[in-house]
Protein backbone atom coordinates (compact mmCIF):
# COMPACT_ATOMS: atom_id res chain seq x y z
CA UNK A 1 0.00 0.00 0.00
CA UNK A 2 1.17 3.48 -0.77
CA UNK A 3 -0.98 6.60 -1.10
CA UNK A 4 -4.17 4.53 -1.03
CA UNK A 5 -3.18 2.13 -3.78
CA UNK A 6 -1.65 -1.31 -3.94
CA UNK A 7 1.94 -1.28 -5.19
CA UNK A 8 4.54 -4.00 -5.67
CA UNK A 9 8.26 -3.77 -6.06
CA UNK A 10 11.16 -6.02 -6.90
CA UNK A 11 13.53 -6.75 -4.01
CA UNK A 12 11.76 -3.97 -2.08
CA UNK A 13 12.55 -1.32 -4.76
CA UNK A 14 10.95 0.27 -7.79
CA UNK A 15 7.36 -0.09 -6.62
CA UNK A 16 4.66 0.31 -9.22
CA UNK A 17 0.91 0.64 -8.82
CA UNK A 18 -0.99 -2.63 -9.08
CA UNK A 19 -4.54 -1.50 -8.41
CA UNK A 20 -7.26 -0.29 -6.13
CA UNK A 21 -7.29 -1.74 -2.59
CA UNK A 22 -10.93 -2.73 -2.39
CA UNK A 23 -11.09 -4.16 -5.91
CA UNK A 24 -8.04 -6.32 -5.22
CA UNK A 25 -9.31 -7.36 -1.78
CA UNK A 26 -12.58 -8.57 -3.32
CA UNK A 27 -10.83 -10.25 -6.22
CA UNK A 28 -8.54 -12.29 -3.98
CA UNK A 29 -11.30 -13.15 -1.54
CA UNK A 30 -13.45 -14.44 -4.42
CA UNK A 31 -10.50 -16.35 -5.84
CA UNK A 32 -10.12 -18.33 -2.59
CA UNK A 33 -7.30 -16.57 -0.72
CA UNK A 34 -7.18 -17.78 2.91
CA UNK A 35 -5.87 -14.53 4.31
CA UNK A 36 -4.74 -11.16 3.01
CA UNK A 37 -1.87 -9.06 4.29
CA UNK A 38 -1.68 -5.31 3.71
CA UNK A 39 1.66 -3.60 4.15
CA UNK A 40 1.66 0.18 4.45
CA UNK A 41 5.24 0.26 3.27
CA UNK A 42 6.01 3.93 3.79
CA UNK A 43 4.42 4.22 7.25
CA UNK A 44 7.56 3.42 9.27
CA UNK A 45 9.97 5.38 7.05
CA UNK A 46 7.59 8.37 7.32
CA UNK A 47 7.25 7.95 11.10
CA UNK A 48 3.48 7.49 11.03
CA UNK A 49 1.00 4.72 11.76
CA UNK A 50 -1.26 3.06 9.26
CA UNK A 51 -4.36 4.95 8.09
CA UNK A 52 -7.39 3.30 9.73
CA UNK A 53 -9.89 4.64 7.19
CA UNK A 54 -8.87 2.13 4.53
CA UNK A 55 -8.61 -0.65 7.13
CA UNK A 56 -12.26 -0.08 7.91
CA UNK A 57 -13.23 -0.02 4.21
CA UNK A 58 -11.41 -3.30 3.68
CA UNK A 59 -13.16 -4.83 6.73
CA UNK A 60 -16.53 -3.83 5.28
CA UNK A 61 -16.01 -6.01 2.21
CA UNK A 62 -13.78 -8.84 3.47
CA UNK A 63 -15.09 -11.94 5.23
CA UNK A 64 -11.71 -13.64 5.51
CA UNK A 65 -8.96 -12.75 7.99
CA UNK A 66 -6.64 -9.92 7.10
CA UNK A 67 -3.50 -8.58 8.66
CA UNK A 68 -2.29 -5.00 8.58
CA UNK A 69 1.31 -3.93 8.79
CA UNK A 70 2.67 -0.44 8.81
CA UNK A 71 4.25 1.67 11.46
CA UNK A 72 2.25 0.32 14.41
CA UNK A 73 4.50 1.30 17.30
CA UNK A 74 2.11 1.65 20.26
CA UNK A 75 -0.69 -0.33 21.87
CA UNK A 76 -3.10 2.52 21.09
CA UNK A 77 -2.29 2.42 17.37
CA UNK A 78 -2.74 -1.36 17.34
CA UNK A 79 -6.07 -1.00 19.10
CA UNK A 80 -7.24 1.45 16.41
CA UNK A 81 -6.26 -0.93 13.60
CA UNK A 82 -7.90 -3.95 15.28
CA UNK A 83 -10.93 -1.87 16.17
CA UNK A 84 -11.28 -0.89 12.51
CA UNK A 85 -11.71 -4.58 11.71
CA UNK A 86 -8.29 -6.10 11.09
CA UNK A 87 -7.78 -9.60 12.49
CA UNK A 88 -4.07 -9.22 13.13
CA UNK A 89 -1.40 -6.59 13.21
CA UNK A 90 2.10 -7.19 11.96
CA UNK A 91 5.03 -5.29 13.40
CA UNK A 92 8.48 -5.08 11.90
CA UNK A 93 10.62 -1.91 12.06
CA UNK A 94 8.98 -0.56 15.27
CA UNK A 95 9.62 -3.92 17.00
CA UNK A 96 13.28 -3.64 16.08
CA UNK A 97 13.39 -0.11 17.52
CA UNK A 98 11.69 -1.22 20.72
CA UNK A 99 11.33 -5.02 21.16
CA UNK A 100 9.22 -4.50 24.30
CA UNK A 101 6.40 -3.51 21.90
CA UNK A 102 5.83 -7.21 21.14
CA UNK A 103 5.32 -7.99 24.85
CA UNK A 104 2.91 -5.10 25.23
CA UNK A 105 0.83 -6.08 22.20
CA UNK A 106 0.68 -9.76 23.17
CA UNK A 107 -0.33 -8.90 26.73
CA UNK A 108 -3.08 -6.55 25.59
CA UNK A 109 -4.52 -8.42 22.59
CA UNK A 110 -3.24 -11.99 22.86
CA UNK A 111 -0.50 -13.65 20.85
CA UNK A 112 -2.95 -14.64 18.11
CA UNK A 113 -3.22 -10.98 16.99
CA UNK A 114 0.50 -10.32 16.97
CA UNK A 115 2.48 -11.12 13.86
CA UNK A 116 6.13 -10.21 13.64
CA UNK A 117 7.41 -9.54 10.14
CA UNK A 118 11.13 -10.06 9.59
CA UNK A 119 12.98 -8.81 6.51
CA UNK A 120 16.09 -10.92 6.25
CA UNK A 121 18.92 -11.83 3.94
CA UNK A 122 22.17 -13.76 3.92
CA UNK A 123 25.22 -12.07 5.48
CA UNK A 124 28.46 -13.26 7.09
CA UNK A 125 27.59 -16.92 6.60
CA UNK A 126 24.27 -16.45 8.39
CA UNK A 127 21.27 -14.17 8.01
CA UNK A 128 20.76 -10.56 9.07
CA UNK A 129 17.58 -8.64 9.86
CA UNK A 130 16.96 -5.47 7.84
CA UNK A 131 14.92 -2.44 8.85
CA UNK A 132 12.92 0.35 7.10
CA UNK A 133 12.84 -1.74 3.94
CA UNK A 134 9.83 0.19 2.59
CA UNK A 135 12.09 3.10 1.74
CA UNK A 136 15.11 2.33 -0.43
CA UNK A 137 16.86 5.42 0.96
CA UNK A 138 16.51 4.42 4.62
CA UNK A 139 16.68 0.62 4.42
CA UNK A 140 19.53 -0.75 6.51
CA UNK A 141 21.12 -3.93 7.79
CA UNK A 142 20.56 -3.99 11.57
CA UNK A 143 23.49 -6.44 11.99
CA UNK A 144 21.08 -8.47 14.13
CA UNK A 145 21.21 -12.25 13.49
CA UNK A 146 17.88 -13.41 12.09
CA UNK A 147 17.73 -16.68 14.05
CA UNK A 148 18.36 -14.90 17.35
CA UNK A 149 15.63 -12.39 16.55
CA UNK A 150 13.24 -15.24 15.67
CA UNK A 151 13.85 -16.79 19.11
CA UNK A 152 13.51 -13.46 20.90
CA UNK A 153 10.22 -12.42 19.29
CA UNK A 154 8.66 -15.77 20.24
CA UNK A 155 9.74 -15.33 23.86
CA UNK A 156 8.19 -11.88 23.79
CA UNK A 157 4.85 -13.23 22.59
CA UNK A 158 4.76 -13.24 18.79
CA UNK A 159 1.91 -15.49 17.64
CA UNK A 160 3.15 -15.80 14.07
CA UNK A 161 6.25 -14.95 12.08
CA UNK A 162 6.32 -13.82 8.47
CA UNK A 163 9.82 -14.22 7.07
CA UNK A 164 10.41 -12.00 4.06
CA UNK A 165 13.47 -13.32 2.27
CA UNK A 166 14.62 -10.09 0.67
CA UNK A 167 16.94 -11.44 -2.00
CA UNK A 168 14.09 -13.58 -3.35
CA UNK A 169 11.43 -10.84 -3.18
CA UNK A 170 9.58 -10.08 -6.40
CA UNK A 171 11.95 -12.06 -8.63
CA UNK A 172 9.72 -15.17 -8.83
CA UNK A 173 12.61 -17.64 -8.75
CA UNK A 174 11.30 -19.62 -5.78
CA UNK A 175 11.17 -19.22 -2.01
CA UNK A 176 14.44 -19.22 -0.07
CA UNK A 177 13.96 -22.77 1.23
CA UNK A 178 17.36 -22.90 3.01
CA UNK A 179 16.71 -19.77 5.01
CA UNK A 180 13.10 -20.73 5.76
CA UNK A 181 14.23 -24.19 6.88
CA UNK A 182 16.79 -22.66 9.23
CA UNK A 183 14.13 -20.40 10.74
CA UNK A 184 11.61 -23.26 10.95
CA UNK A 185 14.07 -25.21 13.10
CA UNK A 186 13.84 -22.53 15.82
CA UNK A 187 10.26 -21.36 15.24
CA UNK A 188 7.44 -23.03 17.21
CA UNK A 189 4.72 -20.58 16.18
CA UNK A 190 3.15 -20.52 12.71
CA UNK A 191 5.75 -19.55 10.10
CA UNK A 192 4.73 -17.85 6.88
CA UNK A 193 7.08 -17.92 3.88
CA UNK A 194 7.33 -14.70 1.93
CA UNK A 195 9.32 -13.68 -1.11
CA UNK A 196 10.08 -15.48 -4.32
CA UNK A 197 6.95 -17.31 -5.45
CA UNK A 198 6.88 -17.66 -9.22
CA UNK A 199 5.22 -20.97 -10.00
CA UNK A 200 2.86 -23.47 -8.37
CA UNK A 201 5.84 -25.79 -7.88
CA UNK A 202 7.53 -23.14 -5.73
CA UNK A 203 4.59 -23.31 -3.30
CA UNK A 204 4.67 -27.12 -3.18
CA UNK A 205 8.42 -27.04 -2.55
CA UNK A 206 8.29 -24.55 0.30
CA UNK A 207 5.60 -26.53 2.12
CA UNK A 208 7.39 -29.85 1.64
CA UNK A 209 11.02 -28.76 2.07
CA UNK A 210 10.83 -25.93 4.61
CA UNK A 211 7.78 -27.10 6.58
CA UNK A 212 6.16 -23.67 6.65
CA UNK A 213 2.56 -23.28 7.76
CA UNK A 214 1.57 -20.85 5.02
CA UNK A 215 2.99 -19.23 1.93
CA UNK A 216 2.49 -15.58 1.11
CA UNK A 217 2.81 -14.21 -2.41
CA UNK A 218 2.08 -10.97 -4.19
CA UNK A 219 3.71 -10.52 -7.61
CA UNK A 220 2.47 -13.78 -9.14
CA UNK A 221 -1.08 -13.05 -8.11
CA UNK A 222 -1.02 -9.33 -8.97
CA UNK A 223 0.23 -10.13 -12.47
CA UNK A 224 -2.40 -12.81 -12.99
CA UNK A 225 0.34 -15.31 -13.75
CA UNK A 226 -0.95 -17.69 -11.08
CA UNK A 227 -4.60 -18.11 -10.26
CA UNK A 228 -5.32 -19.00 -6.61
CA UNK A 229 -7.93 -21.65 -7.36
CA UNK A 230 -5.76 -23.58 -9.80
CA UNK A 231 -2.79 -23.22 -7.44
CA UNK A 232 -4.85 -24.79 -4.66
CA UNK A 233 -5.97 -27.66 -6.90
CA UNK A 234 -2.35 -28.27 -7.80
CA UNK A 235 -1.29 -28.32 -4.13
CA UNK A 236 -4.13 -30.66 -3.21
CA UNK A 237 -3.02 -33.04 -5.96
CA UNK A 238 0.44 -32.98 -4.34
CA UNK A 239 -1.10 -34.15 -1.07
CA UNK A 240 -0.87 -30.76 0.66
CA UNK A 241 -3.98 -29.91 2.66
CA UNK A 242 -5.53 -26.64 1.54
CA UNK A 243 -8.94 -25.09 1.92
CA UNK A 244 -10.80 -25.37 -1.42
Amino acid at each position, binding site marked *: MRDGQVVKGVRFRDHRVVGDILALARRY*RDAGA*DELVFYDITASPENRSVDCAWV*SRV*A*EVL*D*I*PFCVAGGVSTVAQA*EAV*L*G*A*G*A*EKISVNSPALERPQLIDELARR*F*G*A*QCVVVGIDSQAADGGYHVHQYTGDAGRARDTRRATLEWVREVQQRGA*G*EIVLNCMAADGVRAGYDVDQLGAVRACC*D*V*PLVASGGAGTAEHFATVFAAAGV*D*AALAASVFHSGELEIRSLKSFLRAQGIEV*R*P
Partner: protein
Amino acid sequence: MSLADVVIIDSGGANLASLRFALERLGARSVVSAEPAVVAAAARVLLPGVGAAADAMARLAAAGLIGTVRALSQPLLGICLGMQLLYEHTEEGATTGLGLIPGTVRRIPAAAGRPVPHMGWNTCHALRPDSLLAGIKDGEYFYFVHSYAAPVSASTSATTDYGGPLAAVVERGNFHGVQFHPERSGTAGARVLRNFLEF
Protein backbone atom coordinates in the same frame (compact mmCIF):
# COMPACT_ATOMS: atom_id res chain seq x y z
CA MET B 1 -37.19 -1.27 22.84
CA SER B 2 -34.88 -2.04 19.95
CA LEU B 3 -35.57 -2.12 16.26
CA ALA B 4 -32.41 -4.10 15.58
CA ASP B 5 -32.56 -7.61 14.19
CA VAL B 6 -29.77 -8.53 16.53
CA VAL B 7 -28.16 -7.06 19.62
CA ILE B 8 -24.43 -7.63 19.97
CA ILE B 9 -23.44 -7.73 23.62
CA ASP B 10 -20.56 -5.34 24.19
CA SER B 11 -18.22 -7.61 26.10
CA GLY B 12 -15.32 -5.23 25.68
CA GLY B 13 -13.35 -6.97 22.94
CA ALA B 14 -11.49 -4.67 20.60
CA ASN B 15 -12.87 -6.15 17.45
CA LEU B 16 -16.62 -5.88 16.99
CA ALA B 17 -16.25 -4.12 13.62
CA SER B 18 -15.81 -7.30 11.60
CA LEU B 19 -18.91 -8.86 13.14
CA ARG B 20 -20.98 -5.72 12.55
CA PHE B 21 -19.83 -5.56 8.93
CA ALA B 22 -20.67 -9.26 8.44
CA LEU B 23 -24.22 -8.64 9.67
CA GLU B 24 -24.49 -5.57 7.43
CA ARG B 25 -23.50 -7.64 4.41
CA LEU B 26 -26.44 -9.92 5.26
CA GLY B 27 -28.75 -6.91 5.43
CA ALA B 28 -29.28 -7.25 9.20
CA ARG B 29 -29.53 -4.27 11.52
CA SER B 30 -27.43 -4.64 14.63
CA VAL B 31 -26.77 -2.59 17.72
CA VAL B 32 -23.93 -3.01 20.17
CA SER B 33 -25.08 -2.72 23.75
CA ALA B 34 -24.27 -3.59 27.33
CA GLU B 35 -27.67 -2.43 28.60
CA PRO B 36 -29.62 -5.27 30.25
CA ALA B 37 -32.95 -3.85 29.03
CA VAL B 38 -31.76 -3.67 25.42
CA VAL B 39 -30.36 -7.19 25.52
CA ALA B 40 -33.50 -8.59 27.18
CA ALA B 41 -35.71 -7.02 24.49
CA ALA B 42 -33.62 -8.19 21.53
CA ALA B 43 -35.05 -10.54 18.92
CA ARG B 44 -31.66 -12.27 18.79
CA VAL B 45 -28.49 -11.85 20.79
CA LEU B 46 -24.88 -12.30 19.80
CA LEU B 47 -22.28 -12.84 22.49
CA PRO B 48 -18.88 -12.23 20.91
CA GLY B 49 -15.69 -12.27 22.88
CA VAL B 50 -12.09 -11.56 22.16
CA GLY B 51 -9.64 -11.50 25.01
CA ALA B 52 -9.53 -13.23 28.35
CA ALA B 53 -12.45 -15.13 29.90
CA ALA B 54 -12.12 -13.55 33.35
CA ASP B 55 -12.18 -10.02 31.89
CA ALA B 56 -15.22 -10.79 29.76
CA MET B 57 -17.16 -12.29 32.71
CA ALA B 58 -16.16 -9.35 34.90
CA ARG B 59 -17.51 -6.93 32.29
CA LEU B 60 -20.77 -8.86 31.98
CA ALA B 61 -21.10 -8.82 35.76
CA ALA B 62 -20.29 -5.10 36.01
CA ALA B 63 -22.96 -4.36 33.39
CA GLY B 64 -25.50 -6.41 35.34
CA LEU B 65 -25.84 -8.75 32.36
CA ILE B 66 -25.25 -12.18 33.86
CA GLY B 67 -28.79 -12.72 35.09
CA THR B 68 -30.17 -11.11 31.91
CA VAL B 69 -28.27 -13.46 29.62
CA ARG B 70 -29.10 -16.54 31.66
CA ALA B 71 -32.80 -15.66 31.53
CA LEU B 72 -32.95 -15.15 27.75
CA SER B 73 -35.49 -17.27 25.90
CA GLN B 74 -34.72 -15.84 22.45
CA PRO B 75 -31.88 -17.26 20.31
CA LEU B 76 -28.38 -16.42 21.48
CA LEU B 77 -25.20 -17.19 19.57
CA GLY B 78 -21.88 -17.17 21.40
CA ILE B 79 -18.84 -16.75 19.17
CA CYS B 80 -15.38 -18.02 20.11
CA LEU B 81 -14.82 -16.90 23.73
CA GLY B 82 -18.55 -16.05 23.73
CA MET B 83 -19.27 -19.75 23.17
CA GLN B 84 -16.86 -20.77 25.94
CA LEU B 85 -18.57 -18.42 28.40
CA LEU B 86 -21.78 -20.44 28.00
CA TYR B 87 -20.16 -23.30 29.93
CA GLU B 88 -20.08 -23.76 33.70
CA HIS B 89 -16.40 -23.20 34.07
CA THR B 90 -13.25 -22.41 32.11
CA GLU B 91 -9.67 -23.14 33.02
CA GLU B 92 -8.71 -19.77 31.57
CA GLY B 93 -8.07 -17.74 34.70
CA ALA B 94 -10.12 -20.35 36.65
CA THR B 95 -13.28 -18.49 35.69
CA THR B 96 -16.90 -19.35 36.45
CA GLY B 97 -18.96 -19.12 33.27
CA LEU B 98 -22.64 -18.52 32.61
CA GLY B 99 -23.48 -22.14 33.36
CA LEU B 100 -25.89 -22.53 30.45
CA ILE B 101 -24.12 -25.61 29.05
CA PRO B 102 -22.68 -28.29 31.35
CA GLY B 103 -18.94 -28.80 31.25
CA THR B 104 -15.54 -27.21 31.65
CA VAL B 105 -13.56 -25.42 28.94
CA ARG B 106 -9.93 -26.55 29.00
CA ARG B 107 -6.59 -25.38 27.63
CA ILE B 108 -5.66 -27.09 24.34
CA PRO B 109 -2.47 -29.08 24.99
CA ALA B 110 0.39 -27.93 22.76
CA ALA B 111 2.44 -30.54 20.94
CA ALA B 112 5.24 -30.56 18.40
CA GLY B 113 3.81 -29.34 15.11
CA ARG B 114 0.57 -28.36 16.80
CA PRO B 115 1.06 -24.93 18.30
CA VAL B 116 -1.44 -23.21 20.57
CA PRO B 117 -3.37 -21.05 19.80
CA HIS B 118 -5.12 -23.20 17.25
CA MET B 119 -5.18 -20.59 14.53
CA GLY B 120 -6.33 -20.85 10.96
CA TRP B 121 -8.79 -22.66 8.74
CA ASN B 122 -9.97 -26.07 9.89
CA THR B 123 -12.80 -28.42 8.97
CA CYS B 124 -16.03 -29.05 10.88
CA HIS B 125 -17.76 -32.39 11.12
CA ALA B 126 -21.40 -32.73 12.18
CA LEU B 127 -22.33 -35.15 14.96
CA ARG B 128 -26.04 -34.47 14.58
CA PRO B 129 -28.29 -32.09 12.65
CA ASP B 130 -28.19 -28.47 13.79
CA SER B 131 -30.17 -25.77 12.01
CA LEU B 132 -27.16 -23.45 12.44
CA LEU B 133 -25.37 -25.65 9.91
CA ALA B 134 -28.23 -25.84 7.40
CA GLY B 135 -26.92 -25.85 3.84
CA ILE B 136 -23.32 -26.41 4.93
CA LYS B 137 -21.52 -29.50 3.74
CA ASP B 138 -19.75 -31.79 6.15
CA GLY B 139 -16.03 -31.08 6.22
CA GLU B 140 -16.47 -27.36 5.42
CA TYR B 141 -13.62 -25.06 6.47
CA PHE B 142 -14.04 -22.33 9.09
CA TYR B 143 -11.56 -19.89 10.62
CA PHE B 144 -10.47 -20.63 14.21
CA VAL B 145 -8.38 -18.65 16.72
CA HIS B 146 -8.39 -20.09 20.25
CA SER B 147 -6.22 -21.51 23.01
CA TYR B 148 -9.02 -23.07 25.07
CA ALA B 149 -11.69 -25.47 23.90
CA ALA B 150 -14.91 -27.05 25.08
CA PRO B 151 -15.07 -30.86 25.33
CA VAL B 152 -17.28 -32.89 23.06
CA SER B 153 -20.51 -33.53 25.00
CA ALA B 154 -24.25 -33.99 24.57
CA SER B 155 -24.50 -30.30 23.61
CA THR B 156 -21.99 -30.62 20.75
CA SER B 157 -23.44 -30.73 17.26
CA ALA B 158 -20.20 -30.44 15.28
CA THR B 159 -16.51 -30.90 16.03
CA THR B 160 -13.19 -29.83 14.64
CA ASP B 161 -10.02 -31.84 14.99
CA TYR B 162 -6.87 -30.43 16.57
CA GLY B 163 -5.00 -33.22 18.29
CA GLY B 164 -8.42 -34.77 18.96
CA PRO B 165 -12.01 -33.63 18.54
CA LEU B 166 -13.02 -30.27 20.03
CA ALA B 167 -16.48 -28.73 20.18
CA ALA B 168 -16.96 -26.45 17.17
CA VAL B 169 -20.74 -25.94 17.16
CA VAL B 170 -22.86 -26.32 20.29
CA GLU B 171 -26.56 -26.05 21.05
CA ARG B 172 -28.59 -26.29 24.21
CA GLY B 173 -32.14 -25.04 23.85
CA ASN B 174 -32.03 -21.44 22.66
CA PHE B 175 -28.33 -21.13 23.44
CA HIS B 176 -26.01 -21.71 20.50
CA GLY B 177 -22.28 -21.35 20.13
CA VAL B 178 -19.57 -21.58 17.49
CA GLN B 179 -15.90 -21.85 18.36
CA PHE B 180 -14.87 -20.48 14.95
CA HIS B 181 -15.31 -16.92 13.71
CA PRO B 182 -18.23 -16.95 11.24
CA GLU B 183 -17.50 -13.31 10.35
CA ARG B 184 -14.05 -14.42 9.16
CA SER B 185 -15.06 -17.69 7.54
CA GLY B 186 -16.00 -16.61 4.04
CA THR B 187 -19.20 -17.83 2.41
CA ALA B 188 -19.67 -20.72 4.87
CA GLY B 189 -19.42 -18.37 7.84
CA ALA B 190 -21.91 -15.97 6.29
CA ARG B 191 -24.31 -18.90 5.89
CA VAL B 192 -24.03 -19.74 9.61
CA LEU B 193 -24.85 -16.14 10.53
CA ARG B 194 -27.74 -16.11 8.07
CA ASN B 195 -29.08 -19.35 9.55
CA PHE B 196 -28.95 -17.75 12.99
CA LEU B 197 -30.75 -14.63 11.74
CA GLU B 198 -33.51 -16.86 10.37
CA PHE B 199 -34.18 -18.66 13.68
